[in-house]
């Protein structure tokens, strides 16, 4: 019995397997319609995240399974002071697999040690969110066909954005990847990520404050939100925010087959005028998120 807590729990061959399975699901959805019949997914969301929860629920329903659970801590036993371990021991009696979101870092790991069924980390605070990373990987693979030798631009808040850190970690295992880190000085990628991942693996990377300068080189552009609360003053925020908003004008120098991604929800960092550009893949990304979760559920249930 296995769980998925951290993206690095999966070997690259296992990620390839999941992607191949997701591809097969996309091509032959009818073959999977009943595969999880009589199986139950428990969605234990100790903090609300409607988007992620719906993705897991849709995935399980499309596999013919059923879903039970709660969507916020107030309606769960933890509100009465029950430990994570006790909650999942009880849930292990009802369900076949757990998807768990928790505001505290490490809670899903604690759950996986106590549960007798597989646990999927659906986000633990700002720590890990492996199914987001799998979603990103499937999106890249669906649009590019491979991971090797891509120039990947990461734009926005690279300091606090954990989705970015874990995507870098996951991609660093493929060959010839080059990263272009695009952010204001204040929100640069932390040194420990540069050292532990980029330098350690001998990866090629560059840092810039200009999205326009980086644009022509990119195969992938991963946009993230620049949040107001990350800045000391409103003036800096307003000045910087606009330089990291993606518009049709900024896309003029981009490659024809650029893949534009965003973990969503977006606020204003991608202008809605970009949505109709064929290179905009962020809504497709949501769909891929469901497919990769289907593949993951099947893998962990050994189906």
């Amino acid at each position: 019995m296995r769980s998925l807590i951290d993206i690095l729990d999966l070997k690259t061959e296992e990620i390839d397997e999941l992607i191949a399975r997701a591809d097969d699901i996309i091509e032959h959805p009818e073959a999977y319609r009943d595969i999880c019949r009589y199986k139950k997914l428990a969605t234990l969301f100790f903090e609300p995240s409607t988007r992620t929860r719906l993705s897991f629920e849709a995935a399980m329903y499309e596999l013919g399974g059923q879903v039970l659970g709660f969507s916020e801590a107030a309606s769960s036993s933890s509100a009465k002071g029950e430990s994570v371990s006790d909650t999942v021991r009880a849930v292990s009696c009802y369900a076949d697999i757990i998807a768990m979101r928790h505001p505290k870092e490490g809670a899903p790991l604690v759950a996986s040690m106590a549960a007798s069924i597989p646990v999927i980390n659906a986000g633990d605070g700002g720590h890990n969110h492996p199914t987001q990373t799998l979603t990103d990987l499937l999106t890249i693979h669906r649009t590019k066909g491979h991971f090797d030798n891509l120039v990947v631009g990461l734009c926005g808040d690279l300091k606090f954005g954990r989705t970015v850190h874990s995507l870098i970690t996951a991609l660093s295992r493929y060959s010839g990847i080059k990263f272009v880190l695009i952010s204001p000085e204040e929100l640069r990628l932390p040194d420990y990520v540069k050292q532990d991942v980029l330098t350690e693996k001998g990866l090629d990377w560059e840092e810039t404050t200009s999205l326009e300068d980086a644009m022509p080189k990119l195969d992938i552009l991963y946009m993230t939100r620049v949040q107001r609360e990350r800045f000391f003053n409103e003036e800096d925020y307003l000045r910087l925010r606009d330089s990291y908003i993606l518009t049709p004008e900024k896309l003029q120098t981009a490659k024809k087959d650029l893949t534009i991604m965003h973990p969503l929800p977006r606020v204003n960092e991608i202008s809605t005028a970009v949505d109709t550009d064929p290179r905009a893949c962020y809504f497709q990304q949501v769909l891929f998120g469901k497919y990769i979760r289907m593949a993951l559920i099947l893998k962990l249930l050994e189906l």
Partner: protein
Amino acid sequence: MHIDEIKNGLVLDHIKAGKAMEIYRFLDLGSLNCPVAIIQNASSRKMGKKDIIKIDGVLDIDCNILAPICPDITLNVIKDGVRVEKRALELPLEIKDIIKCKNPRCITTTEQELPHIFRLRKTKESIYRCLYCEARAEL
């Protein structure tokens, strides 16, 4: 006890000056039913000043758990009055319930019955990280 005359026991040498009492409490040496000598501020060619702890009559203490907090210690093993082993401490792969995770967002801050476990992630720089949240241990 003549402190230089240990028959069978351990000598922890090159303890950073001022750390001996902390290590005494840490290893819970007070609970041993044998002589323990603490020498503070001994002069040292290598360190200027150092502390030393001598334990007479006990050999089976896991001193490696001291490595993360006091890496310079040299361990001497004395048998029948003769030093049979002298070595640096080895970093343990895991340290359990010795230090606490200081990350306020860590699950160990709300679930107090969980053991505090840190794993060695980088031997060269002796970096330990929390098993749960991966925050770096402050040693």
